[in-house]
């Protein structure tokens, strides 16, 4: 009864948009697809919706070959990152549109629409024109339309990306509520995003996608704690995880003429060259630390992002206060060595502070 995709490939031009993607989605669950822009997220969602036919592979749902079913009979719902509604219809008509298409009874339609409006908080907006709504409201309409349909598969393609910061935070909170109360246990919810934080907050099963390939699958926590390789580590962190080329010897870790103590979880590592990974948030200013040169300092909200350089290495540090820095100024920093990751020269995870290893 699951939505199962096997070895799906889609290659409309020179490049793979989907490359050998397989999945098994169970009803009642939330799946997030994490990947950078153009990583194939939208393509995957469109393939599930039936808007694209893969060149290879199969999709089945409720034991039926899904590919043979045209999109308009699949009973899926989709919310786009652009706020897609029917501009010629008002809010109410927009939401009834799919229901009328399914020829439901008027009473049923009315009930479903009212429920959906309540869920997304647009009661009272029924007769508004779409153009008169704000971006957030437009996206709520789109969401309401998807919810009212009670589709078995609900696809959300970066639904928050085009909203401003505040609205995004607010809607994200609501999404969590909506997903927990507004959806039946029959629904598979697939949510794509570029934002690791969203993935963590939604806390579902995650698929990390890059260049059309699945890099890692698993619960959000697992992805965050034990990224299976450097790519995943970059994608699943914002700012991306810092990478430092270095080596381990029996006494310490070395990179850029810096020597650090060997943390406990590295004790059993072979002595050789590694790509060490460290999150930006695990780097602190410390007068006794190592000297780096500031290339750029960004203030965002209550945090400061420092782009630092030493030798051939460039790293980003996240300082949790607002501070003014001059460019080319030298600062001293300290690495929380207990949070170091080690990736092999093949970029695969060798050791993580949370105990995971690859293979």
């Amino acid at each position: 009864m699951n939505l199962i995709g096997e070895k799906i490939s889609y290659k409309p031009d020179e490049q793979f948009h989907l490359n050998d993607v397989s999945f098994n989605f169970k009803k009642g669950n939330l799946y997030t697809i994490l990947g950078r822009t153009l990583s194939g997220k939208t393509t995957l969602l469109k393939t599930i919706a039936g808007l694209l036919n893969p060149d290879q592979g199969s999709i089945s749902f409720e034991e039926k070959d899904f590919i043979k079913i045209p999109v308009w009979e699949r009973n899926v719902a989709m919310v786009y990152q652009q706020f897609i509604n029917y501009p010629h219809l008002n809010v109410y008509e927009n939401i009834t549109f799919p229901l009328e298409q399914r020829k439901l009874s008027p009473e049923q339609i009315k009930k479903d629409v009212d429920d959906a409006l309540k869920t997304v908080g647009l009661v009272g907006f029924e007769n508004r024109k779409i153009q008169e709504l704000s971006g957030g409201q437009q996206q709520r309409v789109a969401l309401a339309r998807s919810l009212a349909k009670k589709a078995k598969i609900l696809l959300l393609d970066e639904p928050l990306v085009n909203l401003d910061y505040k609205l995004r935070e607010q809607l994200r909170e609501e999404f969590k509520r909506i997903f927990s109360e507004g959806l039946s246990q029959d629904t598979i919810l697939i949510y794509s995003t570029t934002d690791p934080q969203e993935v963590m907050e939604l806390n579902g099963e995650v698929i990390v996608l890059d260049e059309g390939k699945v890099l890692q699958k698993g619960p959000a926590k697992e992805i965050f704690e034990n990224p299976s390789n450097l790519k995943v580590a970059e994608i699943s962190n914002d700012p991306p995880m810092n990478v430092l080329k270095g080596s381990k010897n029996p006494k310490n870790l070395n990179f850029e003429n810096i020597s650090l103590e060997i943390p406990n979880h590295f004790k059993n590592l072979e002595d050789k060259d590694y790509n060490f990974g460290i999150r930006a948030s695990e780097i602190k200013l410390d007068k006794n630390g190592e000297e780096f040169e500031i290339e750029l300092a960004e203030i965002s909200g209550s945090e400061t992002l420092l782009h630092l350089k030493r030798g051939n290495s460039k790293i980003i540090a996240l300082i949790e206060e607002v501070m003014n820095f001059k460019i080319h100024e030298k600062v001293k920093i300290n690495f929380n060595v207990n949070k170091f990751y080690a990736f092999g020269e093949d970029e695969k995870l060798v050791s993580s502070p949370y105990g995971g290893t690859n293979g």
Partner: protein
Amino acid sequence: MNFKHKFVFLFPGLFVLIGILIFPIIFTIRLSLSGWNSYTPEMNFIGITNYIRLFTDDPRFWESFFRLSFLSVTTVILQYVIGFALAMMVWREIKFKRFFRVIFLVPMMTTPVIMTVIWRTFFHESLGPVNDLLGGLGVKPILWLSDPVIAKFTVIIVEVWQWTPFMFLLLLAGLLSLPKEPFLAAAIDGASPFRKFVYVTFPLMAPISIGAIIIRLIEASKIMDTVFVLTSGGPGTATETSSFYIYIKGLREFQMGYAATLSFTYLVIMIISLTIIAKVLTKLMIKE
């Protein structure tokens, strides 16, 4: 999206067009290989005799072709410059904006062949108002239609009058669809109007401009009605364009076979040169 339904959308139009055109095109090609004329109206086969005549012994066609190139390129450039200027002027708020816009659009709504008859009386060297009014200013009568050089410009004037509105419409529509942000940015930077035009408006308008220019070139290359009525290709052959020459050979002298040869050759040249022009313009105007 890719459904088999896509053919249901495309094919009615495509096949109606092909259905209507297939015969005329095949017929033209076949006709071009025949010696059909007024005294032997037969679809005989004379091979490429007509083509040999065209390429070795018909300077008049090639002259008409270069003249056409000159006329159409000049008119289209003028139409573009004037159309752009007019569009810029009524783009933003200005008194009687709607009035001017409608006025500027009107000429393209008129039948060229009819308006040119009016123009002919307008430019009539002794009975037309232009020379009369200029005469009032002490200007000697200008030979609008009978001087080989001036007649070309008269044709250009009429063409510019008739079709600048088309360019104006396309460009104004383009201007109205431009995003506002770049202009705000430029305004914040305190850019002068000239710099704003060069660095913001013009680059944003480049794709629209190319589309408009190509379409106008396609239309302008058919220039026929104007010449037909205004000068009949004269004085001498000073304003004879390709399509008018084809018309003369075909429907005046009734050398149908040869006219078909001209038509087909003309078509091939036009398609090739327009494709090249489109490519060159895209390269010149859109800087990555």
